[in-house]
């Protein structure tokens, strides 16, 4: 069953300098518990797709069908963690609950469990600046999970981290998403990252973005993203995606 469906979605930006067509007839489906990666040249409209799905923007034409009427269907995670420096880790992760007036024992228990499970419980009362980049990104993910969204939108969540940390956080985040049974849409520049995490990769053309190709991967059997990077099909897939991005 498809959880989310984009049907011929186009979007134009309007500014005093003129009109920019960012997206042209984008269509794809996302199934429950699926991990989708979106890759495309820089500035092609990847973030725009996420903003549309999150409801921050409205499409100029076309339709976005959400197969779910609950609130907090979507959780958004940005490139930088955007933790609030004046709040402790705990105060940061309950931000969403605070905004939606959902501070209650049950939700707090869920958050405490998440913090414990992912090694952040001891840092509850610390301020963000006392944490490493990787830990901060995990806190940001838990802040997103607090509202219990079905679909996670990840906009280059690892690009601000150094390579070593990136591989680790990649594994961590993948682990959390699988454990908590979330559906995810990841936007990335990094082809290996897309191959190592996704079930399907959507390749976009330069702006105005159209769907150029959708590649279905079958690498789940290899386990974690790190292990998937080691598998034999990896370099073949890498070349395939790379060629599609080139022309």
């Amino acid at each position, binding site marked *: 069953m498809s959880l989310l469906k984009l049907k011929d979605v186009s979007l134009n930006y309007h500014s005093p300098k003129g009109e920019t067509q960012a997206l042209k007839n984008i269509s794809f489906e996302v199934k429950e518990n699926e991990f989708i990666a979106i890759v495309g040249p820089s500035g092609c409209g990847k973030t725009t797709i996420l*903003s549309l799905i*999150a409801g921050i923007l409205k499409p100029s034409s076309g339709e976005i069908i959400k197969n779910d009427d609950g609130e907090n269907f979507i*959780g958004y995670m*940005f490139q*930088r963690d955007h933790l*609030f420096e004046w709040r402790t880790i705990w105060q940061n992760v309950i*931000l969403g609950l605070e*905004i939606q007036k959902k501070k209650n024992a049950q939700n707090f228990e869920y958050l405490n469990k998440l913090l414990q499970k992912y090694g952040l419980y001891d840092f509850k009362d610390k301020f963000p600046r006392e944490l490493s980049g990787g830990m901060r990104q995990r806190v940001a993910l838990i802040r997103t999970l607090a509202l219990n969204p079905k679909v996670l939108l990840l906009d280059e969540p690892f690009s601000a981290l150094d390579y070593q940390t990136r591989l680790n956080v990649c594994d961590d985040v993948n682990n959390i998403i699988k454990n908590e049974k979330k559906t995810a849409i990841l936007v990335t520049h990094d082809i290996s990252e897309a191959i190592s995490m996704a079930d399907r990769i959507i390749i976009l053309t330069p702006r105005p973005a159209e769907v150029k190709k959708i590649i279905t991967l079958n690498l789940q059997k290899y386990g974690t993203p790190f292990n998937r990077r080691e598998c034999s099909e990896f370099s073949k897939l890498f070349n395939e995606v790379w060629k599609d991005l080139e022309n």
Partner: protein
Amino acid sequence: MKHSKENYSKEHLQYLKKRKNSKIVVLSSQIGLLILFLALWELLARTGLINSFITSSPSKIVNTIGELFASGELFMHMGVTLLETLAGFFIASFLGTLIAILLWWSETVRKILEPYIVILNSLPKIALGPLIIIWVGSGTSAIIAICVLICIIITIITMLNAFLSCDEDKILLMKSMGANKFKILFKLVLPYSIPNFISMLKINVGMSWVGSIMGEYLSSSAGLGYLIVYGSQVFRLDLVMTSTVLLCILAGLMYFAVALLEKYYIKKHR
């Protein structure tokens, strides 16, 4: 990481000692410099190398303070000016921040008012002094009004810039969690701007003293600014010097209070 003192390495203890020592050097030099300055001033005045009728001297200033105290005028004049300054300071800081919030809230209002604020900012506010005295009547209320006028424009500009510098993505994050504008203001924009608010307060300490003294120059019957004008008119320069010294002390204390507030904020959030 917190260590108890016994766990400190020798190197770290040495570092701490060095830091403490340099602090002592700075503080004692500061005090020494002041004493040296006062002593030299007194000496030059007593030996007649400088004319103490024009320059006064530390001992004369102390005497003048004593006289003012004895006649009960000391705290009266200090109190009057302090009250005007504090009133102007608080009204300008909070009203200015409030107006900045309104301007942040509505982009349209902001665009409409922008040229007016820019012009008001470049206008020497004191030029409006005589007008204000005619409008609100001479005396304390006029002085407070002048003080507010001098501080408020820069307060509005500083705070509005602070609000607008808040990361666009953080606002998107709040929106993606369902926050309305009111929540974005109170949970993100205002707490984010507290450091700027504190530096604005620091600027306003200086500005509000300018305002109240200028106001007293224009029209007053009490206060340190009044004493300065009065003293210079009757050529009692001891009185002028004394009032200036008292001003220094009060302004310094007020700045110190704001600095303490800043220290408290940093300590709580670090």
